[in-house]
C-alpha cells in the first residue's frame, strides 16, 4: 500500500495482529478484503476482537451484536475495521 503515514500503518498492523491472533492465523494470511467469517471468527470471536481493539487503542467501540449492520463501527471486512479504528483513534486525539 506504500502509505507514508507511520501512525496509520501501526494501527493497521495492530488491528491485523489482533484479528490474526483471534483467528489463529499468521498476519500474512489476514487479507484486507477478508470478512471475519472468512477467517473463521464467530460471533463470540467478534466481540472478543472488539474488546481487544478497545484495550489496545484505549477507545470505545460502538458495537451492538444485535444489530452489527446498524453499528457506527463497520465490521464488514478487515479493511473496514481498520478504517473504523483509524477514525476512532483520530477522534480521540
Amino acid at each position: 500500500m506504500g502509505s507514508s503515514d507511520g501512525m496509520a500503518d501501526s494501527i493497521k498492523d495492530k488491528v491485523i495482529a489482533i484479528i490474526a491472533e483471534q483467528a489463529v492465523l499468521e498476519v500474512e494470511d489476514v487479507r484486507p478484503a477478508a470478512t471475519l467469517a472468512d477467517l473463521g471468527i464467530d460471533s463470540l470471536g467478534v466481540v472478543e476482537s472488539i474488546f481487544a481493539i478497545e484495550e489496545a487503542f484505549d477507545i470505545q467501540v460502538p458495537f451492538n451484536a444485535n444489530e452489527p449492520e446498524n453499528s457506527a463501527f463497520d465490521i464488514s471486512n478487515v479493511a473496514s475495521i481498520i478504517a473504523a479504528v483509524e477514525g476512532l483513534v483520530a477522534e480521540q486525539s
Partner: protein
Amino acid sequence: MKRVVITGQGTINALGADVAATKRAMAEGRCGIGELEMRDLDRLAVRIGGQIKDYDPEALFNRQQISLYDRFTQLTLIAAREAIAQAGLEFHGDLAARSGVVLGTSGGGMQTLDENYRTVYEDGKNRVHPFVVPKLMNNAAASHVSMEFNLKGPSFTVATACASSNHAMGQAFNMIRSGMCGVVVTGGSESMLCFGGMKAWEGLRVMSKDGCRPFSATRNGMVQGEGAAVFVFEDYENARARGAEILAEVVGFAMTSDAADIVMPSKQGAARAIAGALSDAGMNREEVGYINAHGTGTAANDKVECAAVADVFGPHADDLMISSTKSMHGHLIGGTGAVELLACIMALTDGVIAPTINYEEPDPECALDVVPNVARDAHVGAVLSNAFAFGGLNAVLALRAAP
C-alpha cells in the same frame, strides 16, 4: 403418578410489590424498565433496567435478617411469604418432612459479591463482614425459605442461567408427581443490578441501551431486570382434601440441551423442549392457547424461538398467542421463568393475555401473534412457558386451567 397443582403465588419485581400489582401492570401493558439507580452509573454504557424502586427492607426484615440476607434472598422471602399465605399452609410433622424448596437463581448473592470485592480491591480494606459467605451462596434463598416455613424435605437451588427458574419448577413438579414430596415451594429470584453485574453483561454487547422490544424488527437487545416469584406446588389430592383454591395445574415439563454453542440459541434444541413438554403433558398442540415466550429482545433469540414454535405447532402456530413480558419487567435471568409464570397463570385464571409492549414494527422472522402492545381478553385452557438459557439449556413447562 400424582397430579400437581399450584395453590399459591407471590412476587416482587419492577412491575409491582405483589401479585395483584404485577397482574394489573401486565394487564395495562405498563413498562417497569427505566433509568437505573446505582453507584457509578456514569461509568456504565447501559443505564436502564427493570429495577425495583421504593424498596424498603427495614419495613419487612429486622436488623439481624438484613445483615444476613442478600437482596436476592430478601426478594425471595417476600415472594414466598405471599405465596404460602395464599396457599394457607402451615408445615408441621409429616407434611413438613415431605415438603421442600427448589429455587432458581443464576448469580445468587451478586450484590454481596460486588460490595465486598469493592471493599477489598477498591477500598483496600483487609477485613469484610463475617456473613459474606452465607449471604452470597446460591442456596441462601432456598435455605432461608426452608427455615422461615419449616420445610424439612428436599431443598436445593438450580443454576442454569436464564432457565434456572423453569428448571427449578420442573424439578418441583416431578418431585410431587413421583410422590417424593407433598408440597414444594418453587420459583426463583435474581438481583444482579449492581455495577459489577451490569459491567459483565455490557461486555457481551447484547444489551439494549434504550428498551426491550421483543419480536419487533427494531429490537436491539435485552434489558436486565430483578425480582422474585415463588409458587406453592402441591399434590392435587392434598389440595382438594383441604379445600384449597387451585390456581392452575402443572401438567408437563421437558428439558433439552443444544450441545452446540455457549451463547447462540438453537431452533432444534428449543423445539425439542417445547414438543417434549407437550408430550409429557399428553397435550394436543391445538390445546395450547398461549405461550409465554423466552422473548429476550435479542436479534438471535426471538427469531430462533419463533421458528421453533412454528416448527412444533405447524398451522396452529398462527392461531395461538405468544408474548414476551420481558418487555415490561426486563430479563430477570435466573428468576425470569418464575415471574413469567405469573402471566401464564393470569391467562388461565383471569382470561387476560399479557402483551408484548414496545412493539413497533413487524419482523418477517417473528411472524406470530405476539399480542402487540395491548393485553387481550381470551379464554385459554392450556399454556406453555419457554426458557432457553445461555449454555444451550432449554426448559419448558405446560399448564392447564385448574381441574
